[in-house]
Structure formats: structure tokens, C-alpha cells
């Protein structure tokens, strides 16, 4: 235990040093200008611009450079006026804390998951149980690995170096995880409310959050939406969250004096008007779209990014924590302006689910895709934008491949999870050669 703490502190220190070094080095601008890292909604340059406009008392929402909500603008203003020279430090620290929160959260979650599964495992023959259960000793190690990965994942490092505001968002997300792992539903919900207020899409997180807290209350018994009590609590919580969101909106309205900020924040997110390339699916699609179909596809895409939560919330009832992870991946997949920081946070969380890896098939493929994409993207960008020898399709191709990779990952995870669920509920079926039988999906 002691040594883990020492190791952890070493890691933290090291990660911190790397970040500080990069932020203060000459690479900072280079990284901050990468479109994969800073998008129209999260780039620090735009935040500074917003603050500057505010100082010139021009409404930042009059122009089309700043796209974040008033309260956050106020926060940046506060930072830039009081702690201007400390900002790198602040960002680095926040990022480190994020890592810490994540690992703690995963530690708790693993513990609770283990606790929940005990009941089901007890029903199985001991041999299967032994195979299926999450080994006690590994838990600490896994959560430690989460920390390590988050601290040294190039993506999180870059996001922090570029001082993108998603560093803050990631921090909030990790906090949410931490709190629900403690079972403090109120704080968790309010955090989700804050996130939603900021960039709208995290509203999806409300489902897993509520489910986790509900399940924790049920002492890990798999609850049903039919039961009156759980139903009631769920609804009440969600209503509370919505209320909180509306309050936040009200506050920001009173700050700016009008609802103008809607058009350049939420509406900006929903009607993707900015085609600056990013690692998402939207930019090239809508840049190349025929004007008359634009509306239609816009609706389709936006609905598509929300539609998955309901079925998933039914399927993953038994393990809402996993649902949380899946939601994160879905977000980074279907956001209009995703960045590598979205990738970073869920990649860091993966080790928590090591017990699913055995059932996964696409591991190598996905890894290769991610790595090669992160190498090729800057290269293609350079050839398209700087040298002018390639064209946009090259870069588009890379982003496309990256998203396919993400899709493979998510489906693979889900399938692995389902398999394990199957085994959990009715043991590992083996054939004559003592090899586990293959599974398949069937409608009935």
C-alpha cells in the first residue's frame, strides 16, 4: 500500500513536470494550433479572445469566435485578470487532479462491481466463478494503471499543453465519476447539470449517473424501472438536474442581459456552421453537403447522437458504470466538435475493464488504427495545409479511419460485456474439448 502511494506520487510529479515543461516550451503554440487538439468550442485562443472582447466591452457573442457559455467566460475572465501568469500551472494541476480522480473513481467502482457480482457468482460452479470474478489483488493495480495511463497518454498531455478548456470539462467529468462512486448523487447530478449547461451533450451522462446512484441505493440488487420507488427517485433526480440547468441559464441570462448567447453556444453546437477540420465526422460531411439536404442530415446526425442512450440504459442495467464509459465513447464519437481530450479520458478508463479484454477480438486492430491515425493526421494536415501537395480527402480519410476505430472499440466492448454477462448468469459452457463454446446474438 505504502509503496503504491510512493509510486503514485512519483507518477504525479513526473506527469506534472512533463506538462509544465511542454506548456512553457516553444512547442506549446505548435500543439495549441493543432486542429485535433483545439476545436472552435474548446480552444484557449478563442477563450482569450472572448475575454478580450469582454474587456473592450463588446459582447463576445456578437462575433463568431467565442462559443462558450457566460459563466465559464466569467471564470476565464477571472483567471486571466488575477492569475494570468499562473494559468499554465493551474491547467497542469487540474489535469493531474483529473488523473487522480479517475483512478480513485475506478478503484471504488471496481470494488462496488465486485461486491455486486458476488451474489451472482455465488450461484455459479466455483471453477467458473474463479475464472469470472475480478481478482481482489488486481483492483489496486488496475486503478493505478488508470492513473499512469492518464498521466502519460500523449492525448491528455497535448490537451493540457494546448490549455484547451476541455481540460476543465474532463476534470468535471472525473469528479462526477468520483462522486457517484461514493454514491453522492446530489453533487453528481449538479455536476452533470453544469457540464450540460456548458456544452449540452453531456446531458447523456445523466442516465448512467442516475442508474449508478440508484443501484448503489439498492445495495447492488439489479433494480427494475417498474419498481415505484426507483422510478420515483430517478424522475425526481432528473427533474432536479433540469431545474439546476435552467437556473444556470437564468443566471447567465442575467449576466449577459439577453439570450443572445444561445445562438453562438447551443445553437452553434446543434447547427454545425463551422467546418474547421477536427477528428469528428461532421466537418467534411457538412462542408460537402448539398444545401437543400443540409437540414435533413443535420437532424439525422444530431438525433443519432442522442438515440443510443435509451436502449443502452436498458441493456446495461446491471452495470451502469460500464454504461458511463460507453456514454463517454459515444460522446467523443458523435459530438460535432470532438477533440483528443475526449479520447484521452475514456482511453485512460479502459484498464478498469481488463476483465472484459479476454472476450474482445478487435484489440490489436483498434490499437493500430488509433496509433497510425495519430501519426498520419498531422502528416496529412501538413501536406494539405502547408505544402499544398495533398488535398482535403487525405485528412478526411484519416479522421474517417479513426472514427471507424472508435466504433470497433465500442461494439467490441459491448459484445465482450454481453458475453461476460451471459457467462455470469449461466456459467461458462464448454464443449467436449473443454473449450468455451462460441456465443451468438439471437433475436428471440
Amino acid at each position: 500500500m505504502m509503496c503504491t502511494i510512493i509510486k503514485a506520487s512519483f507518477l504525479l510529479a513526473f506527469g506534472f513536470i512533463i506538462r509544465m515543461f511542454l506548456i512553457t516550451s516553444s512547442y506549446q503554440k505548435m500543439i495549441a494550433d493543432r486542429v485535433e487538439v483545439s476545436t472552435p468550442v474548446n480552444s484557449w485562443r478563442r477563450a482569450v479572445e472572448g475575454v478580450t472582447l469582454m474587456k473592450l466591452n463588446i459582447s463576445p457573442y456578437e462575433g463568431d469566435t467565442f462559443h462558450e457559455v457566460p459563466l465559464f467566460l466569467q471564470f476565464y475572465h477571472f483567471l486571466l485578470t488575477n492569475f494570468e501568469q499562473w494559468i499554465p500551472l493551474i491547467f497542469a494541476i487540474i489535469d493531474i487532479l483529473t488523473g487522480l480522480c479517475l483512478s480513485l473513481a475506478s478503484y471504488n467502482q471496481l470494488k462496488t462491481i465486485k461486491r455486486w457480482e458476488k451474489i451472482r457468482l455465488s450461484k455459479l460452479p466455483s471453477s467458473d466463478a474463479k475464472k469470472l470474478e475480478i481478482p481482489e489483488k488486481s483492483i489496486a493495480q488496475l486503478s493505478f494503471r488508470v492513473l499512469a495511463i492518464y498521466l502519460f497518454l500523449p492525448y491528455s498531455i497535448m490537451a493540457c499543453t494546448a490549455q484547451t478548456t476541455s481540460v476543465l470539462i474532463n476534470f468535471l467529468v472525473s469528479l462526477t465519476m468520483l462522486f457517484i462512486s461514493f454514491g453522492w448523487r446530489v453533487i453528481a447530478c449538479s455536476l452533470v447539470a453544469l457540464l450540460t449547461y456548458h456544452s449540452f451533450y453531456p446531458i447523456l451522462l445523466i442516465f448512467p449517473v442516475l442508474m449508478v446512484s440508484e443501484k448503489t441505493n439498492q445495495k447492488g440488487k439489479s433494480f427494475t424501472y417498474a419498481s415505484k420507488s426507483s422510478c420515483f427517485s430517478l424522475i425526481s433526480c432528473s427533474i432536479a438536474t433540469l431545474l439546476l440547468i435552467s437556473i444556470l441559464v437564468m443566471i447567465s441570462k442575467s449576466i449577459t442581459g439577453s439570450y443572445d448567447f444561445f445562438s453562438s453556444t447551443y445553437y452553434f453546437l446543434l447547427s454545425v456552421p463551422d467546418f474547421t477540420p477536427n477528428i469528428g465526422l461532421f466537418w467534411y460531411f457538412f462542408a460537402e453537403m448539398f444545401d437543400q439536404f443540409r437540414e435533413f442530415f443535420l437532424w439525422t446526425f444530431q438525433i443519432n447522437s442522442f438515440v443510443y442512450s435509451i436502449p443502452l440504459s436498458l441493456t446495461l442495467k446491471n452495470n451502469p458504470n460500464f454504461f458511463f464509459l460507453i456514454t463517454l465513447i459515444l460522446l467523443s464519437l458523435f459530438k460535432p466538435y470532438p477533440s483528443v481530450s475526449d479520447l484521452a479520458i475514456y482511453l485512460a478508463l479502459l484498464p478498469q475493464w481488463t476483465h472484459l479484454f479476454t472476450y474482445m477480438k478487435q484489440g490489436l486492430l483498434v490499437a493500430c488504427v488509433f496509433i497510425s491515425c495519430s501519426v498520419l493526421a498531422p502528416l496529412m494536415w501538413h501536406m494539405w495545409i502547408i505544402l499544398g501537395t495533398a488535398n482535403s480527402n487525405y485528412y478526411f480519410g484519416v479522421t474517417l479511419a479513426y472514427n471507424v476505430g472508435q466504433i470497433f472499440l465500442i461494439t467490441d466492448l459491448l459484445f465482450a460485456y454481453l458475453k461476460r454477462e451471459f457467462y455470469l448468469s449461466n456459467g461458462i459452457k464448454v464443449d467436449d474439448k473443454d473449450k468455451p463454446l462460441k456465443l451468438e446474438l439471437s433475436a428471440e
Partner: protein
Amino acid sequence: MTLIYFLTFIVLLPCVHLDEAVKDDYSESLLIKPLPDGMIYNHFQFKTILHQDIEYLHLENHFDRFPLAIGNFISKNLIKELTFSLGRGHWKLNTWGYPLRYQPNGAELWVTLQNFNPNPWKSWKDITSTLSGLFCASLNFIDKAATTKPKFSLKPDGIFINDSYRPDNVFYASLAHEAVCTENLTPWKKLLPCFSKAGLASLLNAVQIFNSNYFALSLDVKSICRNPSCNETSTEITQSVQVVFNPPAMFEGKHRWSIVKFFGTSLKEECKLASSSKIYVETTVNDTDNSYNLSPLPETSIESDFQGEKRRFAVYDVKKMIEHNRNNNVNKFNIYSMYQKEYIYKKVNPPYITAHRYITGYGVYLGGITCRITNSLTKAQNVTYLDVIPWYLRIYIHTLSITSNNVEIKPSKLYHKPGKDRAQPHHIEIILELPPLSDTIITYDFERAFLKWTEFPPDANHGVYVGAATLTFQPTNFQNLTIHPEHTESLDPPTIKIKTENLLVSLPTPDFSMPYNVICLVSTVITLAFGPIHNLTTKRARIAIQSKEGSNLKDRIFKFFKRS
């Protein structure tokens, strides 16, 4: 006897009527000025004055000089002041000095509407479309996204009685890529009372003047004082053409010029309607070693003293000259000039305030705009800098830095209106004081927007233009000023407006042949996500039935086709 009286009355009657009808006055002039680098600057000016207040034009009673079309146009759109110009080529500020009227390449429109105009934006739109029809120019590309309302830069030229001037009635727009050619000149000439048949306007034939190093035509409408007390105003329409010729290119390398050679024709006939029509040739340079002599000799030569800046002009009265020629039956009139010695290219010292603007950086994503303003005077100078950047170059105002000789200086006023995508341009206006003998650099960064494939112009890879920036100031030194002898009586120092270069910025282009492919690909990826997730959430896992078939190839193929 009575009969004779009667007849005379009959004869006189129309004249009398005419006299009454003449509420308007028309005068024309041509200023010829040798520029420091041996090129010749010709400035035509046709001035029509209607003695009516611009806000209450009565066009029903006929008058023969004032262009009716413009009259209707003004009264229809409630215009107070209008400045329209089409230019081609680039005025070389450093060598040529300040022109009488600085016009950038392309079209420029600047309108001040009357205060009680009910719907300014609508009449602005009408004005652009009307002018585009009138002058065969595609001014209808001026929309909200190209229009700005400058705060400090554009002070009105005309008179505003009991200062009724309101900056928010000013509309300004420029189209840097607009071409100017015969089809624009012809309708422009038709506005003149004698069209292009007689008078100085007959010199303006397209083929000649477009073969020049700089060409600009303009139409200004403003109100001027009708009487010294200036309690009522009358409307003035000024049409001017500026042409710069390069004599060596026309006289196989020799430095000499003549009206016939420049304009391809001589003056054959004067414009009867013109109250005065004069040709001025600036002879100030004759003090230097590049002196030339004119023939025929001018009958008068005036010495103008403008705020202590002395200039000499040879004056030709066209009417007199043609009259005189006619008498000794030569029915044409020409002026030509020869340099006494071989022409010497001297080092030209640039005007004391120059501005040059250019793009910095490379690649088609990030970049910067830098404007270098030099002040070579020993006293400080206040200038106003106006820059209008189209929305697709996203300006970051926090990167704006103004340094003078590498020292940060604070602007005394800064106005910024951030651009909005497809709706309004970025608009920066800076009032600052240039230190003496300084080299001031205004610079800011921008980020290129990525446009829809349908938003690009047909020649997408040519790039897009950024209109010239305007630098306005009250000169304290008149050395490189071009001075028009007719303007000298106005004692207040003129405001000089100089323009920087237009900029060509290449934007990142998508592949224009891709739409279908992209739509298909992306949609496929989406379904790739949708399908499996749908499967996983709706179906449940079970033990696979080990299928015996699929062992040999034939079955497998069969199976494959069955599946798909």
C-alpha cells in the same frame, strides 16, 4: 416695325425661357501632371452643380446639364452624399505621391443617407442594385456581409447644415476584385451633358485610356454651399477620371507626351454647355533638371500658393483655343511637350506618410496581416486606420499589436466589431498618433475559415481578395500633394485618404468532386455504429449452434449469397 419687335420677341422668347430654366451649371477641367518617375498623371473633372437642396430636388422642371437619372436615383433613395469609384491597377504611393483622389483597385461605394430615411438598409440595397444596372458593374454582390458603417474614418465631404451628420447613416463597401472596362465607362460618359461627343470628354475613348498604368473613374454627389453665408445648399455632381500614362511605352522609349498620342484623338469641338473648360499642365518640375517645354504655349500661367506650397500651372482655355484654331481653319487642338534633355531617373523620396499592408506567414490555415505605416516627418501625426476584413478570415483582436520602432504604443481610440459568419465582416478602426520619424507596425493574426463547397467562387484556387485598408489624416506638409488649381481657394487643409494594397488570400479548398462520395462514406460509418449497437441492445447472447456446413467452399459461397 412692330413686326420686327414681334419677331425679335419670338426669337428671344426661347432664350429667355432657357435663362430661367438654367438652374444648373457645368464646368470641366483636365489637369496634367508629370509624376516624379516620368509618368504622366491626367485628372479629368466634370462638375455639375444644381442649385437645389439635395433633400428637396424638384426634377419635374427641366434642366439640361444635370443628369436626370442621377437626380431620380438620389430623390428615390434619399441620398445625402454618394461616392462611387471604379479603379484598375495600383497607385504607386511611394513614387507618385498623393493623388487628388485615391482609389483602390475594384469598386468602392460610400453613401451617406438622409437622416429621415425610413429604411436605410433597404435603400442601401436598392442603391447597389441600381448602380450595378447603371454602370454594368456587379455591385449587387455588396450585401450585409460586405458592408460596414465606419465610425471615425469617413468624414463627410459635403456640407451638413447645422451639423445634421450622423455616422450611423454611413454605409461603406468595397469589391476588390471588380473589373473596370469599356462597359463601365460608356454609361458613365452618358451622364455628361455633352456625352462623349464634344469637350474634354471626347478625349476619353476606351481603347486608349485602358492602356495605362493606372485608371480610375468616379462619381461623387455632395451638397455644397450655395452662397457665402452657407444657409442653403446646392447639389454638386463631380465625375472624375484619373489616368496615368507611361510615355516611354508609347513613344518607343522616349520621354515626351502629347494629348493626341495619349487619347488617340485631338480636341475637335468644345462642349457648348460648359461654362468653363480648361486644361492645366503643372510646370512646377521645370525648376528641376527634367524640365520640358509645351507647345502651343499656354496663354496664361498661374501660380498657386497652397498653404505655402507653391505650384505653377500652364492654363489652356479649350473654348478659346478651339475658337482660335477655327479662325485660322485648323479644326483640332492638341498639346504636346518635349523634355529639353535626356530624361534622368532620380531617386524619388516617398511621401511623408505611407502605408503598406501585406499577409504574413504561409500555409492556408493561420496567418497574419501587417500594416507598416511610416512617418518621415519630424513631428507627430494623427492618423485613422480603417480595416475591413471579410468574415472568412477570423481576426483575433487579442493578437492586435501596434509597435512603433519596436516600442508598443497605445492607440488613442480603438473600435472593433467582430465578424459573424456569412453575416458581417470584421471591422477594425484605430486612431493613433504616429511618433515623429517613426515606422509603425500594426499587426494581427487571423485564422482562415473553411467554407462550404458551394460558397467558393468559381476560381476557388485563385484565392479571395481583402479590400484595401484606409488611412485618413490631416496633412501638415503638402510636398507630395497633387493640387488642383481650382481647389486652392478652399483654405481648410484637405483630409488625405490613402489606401493600402488589396490582399489576395488563398483559402483551404475541399475537393469539389467529392460530395457524393463523402455523403456515402460518412453515412456508412454512422450505420456501422448503428447496426451493431442495435443488434447488441435488442438481441441477447446464446450458445451458437455449431453449423456443420460451411466446411467446403461451395457451401460457403452459397451461404454467403444467401446472407447478402
